[in-house]
């Protein structure tokens, strides 16, 4: 009974239930062949690319901030590496550093503006989102004269960033797992994690407790913009070309993954494993529907309903947790302070 209670008090509880619920729903109403579904690469590839962005976006949300500029950073990363290494034929390392450097730069702008002004980060990153879209599209046109730039990456770069393992699974899956493991460790086992939850819980008292709130915030924005550029870069290397449009879906999709994963937008509550499971759930809803008899047309309805149910569950579980063991809240939410 207490084991169940403590399991349900964890932030990822609702995410796990959503995941199981969706698979059960597809199995019962969609006649899905589970063997085929789990053997398929498509939704895992989808999840990996989304997941690499969703984790830092989730950490930002835990700290009480939003970043929607990632929607422009994905094509920006892909375009930068393609222009530098494809069009100008510079070594691929230069292109990759350029892409990631651009991510760092935009992250710094987002972070510094958020810290220095009283404007909500949603609005600030909306500004950088639109500005970067313009920079990328106009820049590509200006420099290369085309909206689509081909790129031929050398073998080693393809092996590391743009390979298909077993001819189907993108190497981004490995990066995603690695990313989740490292950030999971940092968030749940180091002081930075405690700072993060403290910031999201109450920014002012975190500052008073001596936590470098501003530096942490800027660092998180840099992390999310760079991860988005990384995803774009991997895409360009894998598919041998960069496309200037794209990425806008990642904005709402990543927020949905994070929220289904049990993070509260109000901040201070969530876990990396929850975000990971939330991303899996989203990918199965979105891509797994092809494996069912359900018409693809209804996928968005299922996503919307899943999201609302998941948030409602998160809220309920959280209240349940609060009422069950007031002394233990910190265990689930704040990673053993």
């Amino acid at each position, binding site marked *: 009974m207490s084991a169940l209670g403590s399991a349900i008090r964890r932030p990822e509880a609702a995410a796990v239930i959503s995941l199981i619920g969706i698979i059960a729903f597809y199995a019962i109403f969609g006649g899905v062949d589970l063997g085929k579904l789990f053997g398929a690469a498509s939704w895992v590839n989808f999840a990996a690319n989304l997941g690499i962005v969703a984790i830092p976006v989730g950490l930002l949300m835990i700290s009480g901030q*939003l970043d929607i500029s990632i929607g422009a950073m994905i094509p920006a990363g892909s375009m930068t590496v393609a222009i530098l290494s494809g069009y100008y034929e510079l070594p691929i390392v230069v292109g990759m550093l350029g892409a990631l450097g651009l991510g760092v730069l935009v992250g710094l702008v987002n972070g510094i503006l958020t810290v220095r002004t*009283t404007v909500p980060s949603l*609005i600030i990153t909306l500004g950088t989102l639109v*500005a970067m879209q*313009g920079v990328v599209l106009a820049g590509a046109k200006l420099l290369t004269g085309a909206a689509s730039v081909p790129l031929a990456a050398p073998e080693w770069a393809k092996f590391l960033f743009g390979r298909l393992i077993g001819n189907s699974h993108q190497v981004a899956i490995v990066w995603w797992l690695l990313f989740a493991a490292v950030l999971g460790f940092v968030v749940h086992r180091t002081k930075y994690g405690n700072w993060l939850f403290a910031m999201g819980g109450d920014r002012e008292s975190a500052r008073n407790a001596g936590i470098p709130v501003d530096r942490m915030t800027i660092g998180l924005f840099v992390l999310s913009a760079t991860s988005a550029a990384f995803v774009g870069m991997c895409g360009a290397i894998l598919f041998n070309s960069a496309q200037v449009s794209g990425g806008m879906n990642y904005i709402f999709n990543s*927020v949905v993954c994070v929220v289904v994963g049990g993070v509260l937008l109000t901040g201070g509550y969530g876990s990396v494993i929850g975000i990971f499971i939330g991303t899996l759930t989203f990918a199965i809803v979105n891509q797994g529907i092809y494996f069912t008899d359900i018409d693809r*047309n209804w996928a968005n*309805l299922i996503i919307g309903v899943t999201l609302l149910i998941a948030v409602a569950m998160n809220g309920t579980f959280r209240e349940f947790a609060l009422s069950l063991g007031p002394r233990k809240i910190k265990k689930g939410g704040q990673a053993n302070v």
Partner: protein
Amino acid sequence: MSRQSDSRSFPVSLGSIARRPEAGSLVGLVIVYTFFAILGGAVFIGAPGWSSWLNIAAEVGIVALPVGLLMIAGELDISVGSVIPASSMTAAIVSGHYELPAVVGIVAALGVGLLVGFVNGYLVVRTRIPSLIVTIGTMFAVMGLTLGFAVLISGSTSVFLVPDPVTKTVLGAFIGGMFNVSMFWWAGFAVAIFYLLHVSPIGNWIFAVGGDRESAHNAGIPVKWLTVSLYMLSGFAAAFVGVLQLMTYQSAQVAAGQSFIFNSIMCVVIGGVLLTGGAGSVIGIVIGTMTFAIVNQGIFFSGLDPNVGSLIIGALLLGAVLSNDTFRKLALNYATKKS
């Protein structure tokens, strides 16, 4: 020093103009218009240029006004992006596919908007889920329902409707062959919402709720009723734009309207309303919408790469954000100095 004394001697001082929420956005509007007037030349300054950006401004403006009210009250509405196609599809199916009178289709379409708005508002006030998340959820759900039902009922993803002359004149005509009637509806919405926000007592309630929800509640303001009403208003406005688009282009497409989500927020922010709630004005939102539309259309008159437009809008947005912040700090400093 001399400026300081100036500002004391006149009733309408520089300081008080700068402190008005729409001050920064008016400066932005003037700069942007001058810039494109120089590049665009006579055509842009003349009636064709005006109608060109006013047509764009009208549609996004009708949505931006209630979205702005919500933002003043501290809430967001993402679902407008899927209410627009849902409403035009509803009207097209009712009046085009089933061939019922246009009025029935329009009423049904606006009803869809009100219903989605009610669901949004109800979920926001009953649960403690942030409105961003709630409206993302309803956005996805409405999108799925629109696509699913359109294919189920009409077997197609685009439905056609030839409106009767009266409906076409009222909702989808071009006056002088260039000015879309939508801009008069926009003006109507602006006047009504101006009255609501700046004249009627409800306006004070909205500012109060945006400033501090708890104390507004304690002061006896019907916070829940107000929030639900504002969401129904934005759902209604989005549905209205859907009807306008249907009557203008005579066809409803399942995939449309997504661009309105961020565009409406941008218009509101350029107009000086911040998401922090509790501050903003209808005139500011109208100015922001005009600025946004001038950049979007002016770019085609200017001979610049169309994508430079996004860059300018992004810069304007950040500029608006920063100047608002600066003006606000200025205002606060001034106020404290005075007292």
